[in-house]
């Protein structure tokens, strides 16, 4: 079988990492949300926060399990599929991953045990603290892995000795030029993704006329968070883009579909990049707006794709399209958050059913935006595995293409099964809603009222 091992190794890594990133995007934010609910529960003593927390813990458990097992796979994929890369970069990237395991994974995994099984065993403060520790663990995990990824984008603080990259300055390695931007962008994305899931679930409860009190709490908290984070993400993204222009101008050229660097850049709203003829087809563009955004001047110049031969350009179509999907969803999330806040201010948030219907059906917006963003930055780095140092084709393992193809098929089948069941179970947990005693007939009869408060036994203190 003459399968191309490099392409297959890339496909396998792309598949396993896209599958994986879905869960951290959610659990980073969800664990912070759980800790917040726990804090509110401790602070106000109101039981609804505790009930909401325990409801989301169930969903968190399912999601976290999928994140953990798909993460273990990745920690071995560097070696199985990218052994030459591992041998070359291990001295620099190894410790970053090592710190991730020791400072983050153990924290998450161990305190998760308390969060999932300790409610009746530990005092409320320790239960809430465990949620906070898990949230901190997921955040530090993001810190280290994004540092490692950013080093591959903007390597710094190293020297090449005997054919391998060796560390010279750890501070420069960890805080390499693109890391602060990427970290802020991803962390904010994870919180925003979770906010839109919580928003969607809250809206779904209100639309179905059940768990109204919990639904309203979720809606308020999610809108309150998103109205800050969504516009903030636009600002961080812009800064990240400027940083990329400085260090990886060709990635930006691919994102913008900018061919000729001797002319000011257009802002291409839509087009189909034609790599063969080095032009954009069906282009809809605003002249000079690209220069305005990237150089903050009307006639500013920045490098175009034609400045390098075709074999040094990133694959254009995925970078260009994924960037538009990400930005489009980002703008949608800003609009939804601002409009939600406006409705809240007007006092009609819980009754504006068309708005609730839209947000209930766009809970996925953050996930798709995150995946698209990663496609942009990872495909945009090509043909380099470590930017300007190691080409992707030189990093691959000496494993036959057929073997990689076989295991890729295995991963697709296995993840397909696990993912389908996981989504099905999470959806069912959401459908059941928080575990609060309420007679089922109240669900439909009393929409608009508050059946839960009536059905809840009074005086159940914590």
């Amino acid at each position, binding site marked *: 079988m003459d399968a191309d091992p490099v392409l297959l190794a890339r496909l396998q890594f792309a598949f396993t990492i896209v599958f994986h990133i879905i869960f951290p995007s959610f659990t980073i934010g969800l664990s912070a949300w759980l800790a917040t609910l726990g804090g509110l529960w401790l602070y106000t003593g109101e039981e609804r926060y505790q009930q909401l927390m325990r409801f989301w813990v169930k969903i968190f458990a399912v999601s976290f399990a999928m994140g953990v097992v798909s993460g273990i796979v990745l920690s071995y994929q560097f070696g199985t599929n990218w052994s030459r890369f591992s*041998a070359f970069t291990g001295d620099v990237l190894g410790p970053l991953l090592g710190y991730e395991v020791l400072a983050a994974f153990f924290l998450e995994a161990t305190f998760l045990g308390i969060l999932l099984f300790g409610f009746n065993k530990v005092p409320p403060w320790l239960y809430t603290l465990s949620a906070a520790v898990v949230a901190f663990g997921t955040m530090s995990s993001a810190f280290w892995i994004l540092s490692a990824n950013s080093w591959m984008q903007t390597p710094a603080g190293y020297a090449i000795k005997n054919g391998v990259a*060796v560390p010279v300055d750890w501070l420069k390695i960890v805080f390499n030029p693109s890391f602060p931007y990427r970290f802020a962008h991803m962390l904010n994305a994870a919180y925003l993704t979770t906010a839109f899931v919580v928003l969607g679930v809250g809206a779904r409860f209100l639309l179905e006329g059940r768990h109204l009190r919990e639904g309203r709490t979720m809606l308020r908290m999610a809108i309150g968070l998103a109205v800050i984070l969504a516009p903030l993400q636009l600002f961080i993204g812009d800064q990240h883009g400027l940083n990329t222009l400085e260090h990886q101008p060709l990635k930006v050229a691919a994102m913008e579909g900018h061919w000729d660097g001797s002319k000011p850049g257009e802002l291409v709203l839509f087009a189909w990049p034609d790599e063969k003829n080095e032009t954009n087809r069906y282009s809809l563009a605003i002249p000079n707006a690209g220069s305005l955004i990237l150089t903050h001047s009307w006639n500013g110049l920045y490098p175009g794709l034609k400045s390098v031969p075709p074999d040094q350009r990133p694959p254009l179509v995925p970078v260009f399209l994924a960037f538009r999907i990400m930005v489009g969803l980002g703008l949608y999330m800003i609009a939804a958050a601002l409009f939600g806040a406006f409705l809240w201010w007007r006092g009609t948030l819980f009754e504006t059913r068309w708005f609730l219907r839209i947000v209930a059906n766009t809970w996925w917006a953050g996930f798709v935006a995150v995946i698209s963003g990663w496609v942009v930055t990872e495909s945009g780095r090509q043909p380099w595995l470590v930017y300007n140092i190691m080409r992707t084709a030189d990093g691959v393992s000496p494993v036959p293409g057929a073997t990689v193809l076989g295991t890729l098929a295995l991963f697709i089948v296995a993840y397909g099964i696990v993912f389908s069941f996981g989504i099905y179970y999470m959806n069912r947990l959401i459908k059941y809603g928080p575990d609060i005693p309420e007679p089922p007939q109240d669900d439909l009869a009393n929409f608009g009222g508050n059946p839960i408060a009536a059905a809840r036994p009074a005086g159940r203190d914590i």
Partner: protein
Amino acid sequence: MESMEMYLPLIWAALIGVAVALYIILDGFDLGIGILFPFAKSEAERDQMMRTVAPFWDGNETWLILGGVGLFVAFPRAYAAIMPALYLPVIVMLVSLVFRGVAFEFRTVSHSKKGWSFAFALGSTLATFSQGLVLGGLVQGINVVNGQYAGGPFDWATPFTVLCGFALIAGYGLLGSTWLHMKTDADVAARSQRQARYWLIAVLLFMAAVSLYTPLAEARIAQRWFSLPNFYFLWPVPTVTALVAFACWYWIERGREVPPFLASIALFLLGYAGLVISNFPYIVPPSLTIWDTAASPGSQIFMLIGTLFLLPMVLGYVILVYWLFRGKVHAGETYH
């Protein structure tokens, strides 16, 4: 500088050795429960079995990540040589771990537990078997040219690695059954006590087989054990193993709860020590030593500083969680 390049790899080999040992013990009884799943009489019993490890499984598997990443940190050239050589067993292990890992959560939220019980049992058993293949593949040697794997995709497939696969199933079965005897009551505990004896016999047979086969097949291993003066220092290893095995049997028979589990751990550590003695200082037998594959001193020191702070903390809160969930899991308790 010269001495640092001499000692740092030794320190790291010891640290990774400890991480792997902790993984084998902690995930050993955890995977062992999956191996014992088919013998349970009802889903209620399986609930009880699973509850004994449910709060810990995620932490237990983190030691496996530490083992893999530790190798990448301290011996990147070993990591890069081993993983492609043992590609298929490693991937099968990972996919099996996916199924048995999600089974913990999926089983509790699905209406019918049967499907995920099956996934848990099969995933645990296959993951264990693959780990045995990896271990055997490493011991029998890896063909390395210019620092990269130079063999085919099925070089690992030999009778010896298959033997190691079954040996590890027996070993984790023993750890799982002695753990369950200690952590459960009623029928599950009684059955685990009965089964522990059979697993112990199987483990001893496999240990004997591996101990006979490796020196016969590999001259360097025979040389290590049977040349003088090595033999004077090494004869206690098999002797202590025999004594521990006898004590384990005796404690199981007497119905003791904690000692058989500790004795099973000791058996594991002795077998592990035997393999280390056979192969040290090779990390990729028969050609690459820990010094050949070590990361630069700067990398090893940077990570070592963090490890000295973080590892004791990790051990501290791991112990805290085991302590919080101490005591027996009784039949019929609720899950979450």
